[in-house]
């Protein structure tokens, strides 16, 4: 059974404008999936649908085999969730927030909670409203992890954290991953964090899944082709090349991303468009993201 399944998910906020327009992918247990997409691409919406916080207008979602709208309590008990703007009650003390979570989760691991609490240097007496952004995020993370969830949903968990706090957050997630082998879906704009953590990349663009690949496969099996401008060469013609999944127009050249290794990609572009002087190379995740998400849609 998959830990998470999205099937044809659709969700519009304004009539006729779909944020998610048929998103389908599933995550087997133990996998770490990095969810990519520009701001507004619908990552948060998708994660909230998995948490049962909002409902998809079409399609189905299964979390640990359950429908989060029909079985909200059971799903929430078995899932850990950290949102970008976690709203913890500002008038409560940090310790009270932890106590509240302990009471809600039957699988709460007090030893783990203690360990994280020491590591994060959380002070029980401190009011939530007085915590720094980093401290508040650590508190949220402790509450999301201490019940040893089977599935962790992390929505931009590191945004606004300084590099040291981000690294500490990653270390904690990796330890947990290693100890309990939980499944993780996380969105982040820090591509290096994604490269550290993820086995697989799902990228949402224009409401749909544009890329769904193993990270290393993406890094080694996809290429960026730099194609010099030539008479009659258009974006559309490049998009017609077999394996081409995105084209970005730059002043001096077209940048095309192909689902092929560099040598194959160069051969494909040169042969199918009868042009020469094409340079192809593999690219890091950050550049891949820019090339695919940065072009006109």
């Amino acid at each position, binding site marked *: 059974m998959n830990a998470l399944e999205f099937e044809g998910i659709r969700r519009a906020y304004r009539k006729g404008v779909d944020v998610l327009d048929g998103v389908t992918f599933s995550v087997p247990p133990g996998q770490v999936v990095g969810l990519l997409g520009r701001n507004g691409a619908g990552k948060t919406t998708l994660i909230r649908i998995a948490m049962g916080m909002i409902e998809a207008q079409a399609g189905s979602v299964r979390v640990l085999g359950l429908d989060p709208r029909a079985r909200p309590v059971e799903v929430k008990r078995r899932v850990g969730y950290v949102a970008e703007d976690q709203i913890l009650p500002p008038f409560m003390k940090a310790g009270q927030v932890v106590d509240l979570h302990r009471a809600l989760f039957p699988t709460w691991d007090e030893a783990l909670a203690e360990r994280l609490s020491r590591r994060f240097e959380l002070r029980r007496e401190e009011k939530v409203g007085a915590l720094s952004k980093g401290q508040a995020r650590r508190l949220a993370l402790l509450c999301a992890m201490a019940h040893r969830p089977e599935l962790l949903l992390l929505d931009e968990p590191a945004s606004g954290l300084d590099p040291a706090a981000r690294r500490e957050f*990653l270390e904690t997630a990796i330890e947990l991953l290693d100890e309990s082998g939980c499944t993780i879906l996380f969105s982040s704009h820090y*591509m290096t964090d994604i490269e550290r953590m993820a086995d697989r990349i799902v990228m949402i663009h224009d409401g749909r899944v544009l890329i769904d690949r193993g990270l*290393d496969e993406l890094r080694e099996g996809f290429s960026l082709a730099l194609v010099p401008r030539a008479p009659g060469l258009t974006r559309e013609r490049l998009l017609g090349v077999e394996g081409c999944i995105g084209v970005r127009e730059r002043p001096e050249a077209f940048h095309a991303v192909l689902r092929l290794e560099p040598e194959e990609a160069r051969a494909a572009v040169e042969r199918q468009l009868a042009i020469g002087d094409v340079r192809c190379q*593999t690219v*890091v995740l950050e550049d891949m993201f820019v090339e695919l998400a940065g072009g006109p849609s």
Partner: protein
Amino acid sequence: MQIYVHPGDELPIYRQIVRQVTDAIAGGRLRAGERLPSHRELAIQLVIAPLTVKKAYDELERAGLIGTQRGRGTFVSDRLPAPDPVLKRERLREAAQRLLSQAALSGVGYDEVLSLLEELQKEMQA
């Protein structure tokens, strides 16, 4: 040995590990029979997903450079495989390419490069 990975590098992280371990074995910094960190230890040390370490170790094992002894850990192989002749040539070719590019940029002619190589060869044999 210390491994250092850089997530924004041209090489994916598992390849960086494969390369560093391979280089360390080739350079004698890792000796036959020496124990490597476990998946877990290395994952936590490098702050990367445990599966990435597994992938790197699997690749090194396939290449015959390391072996896993159940319950004891991962070790550098006692008998290292003969280097792959194709790969060997490819690496050499890359190095030669760099040498020639450097020479061309510095305005050094081909004959001069050859005499430099001869000179170095003599030094190595001396």
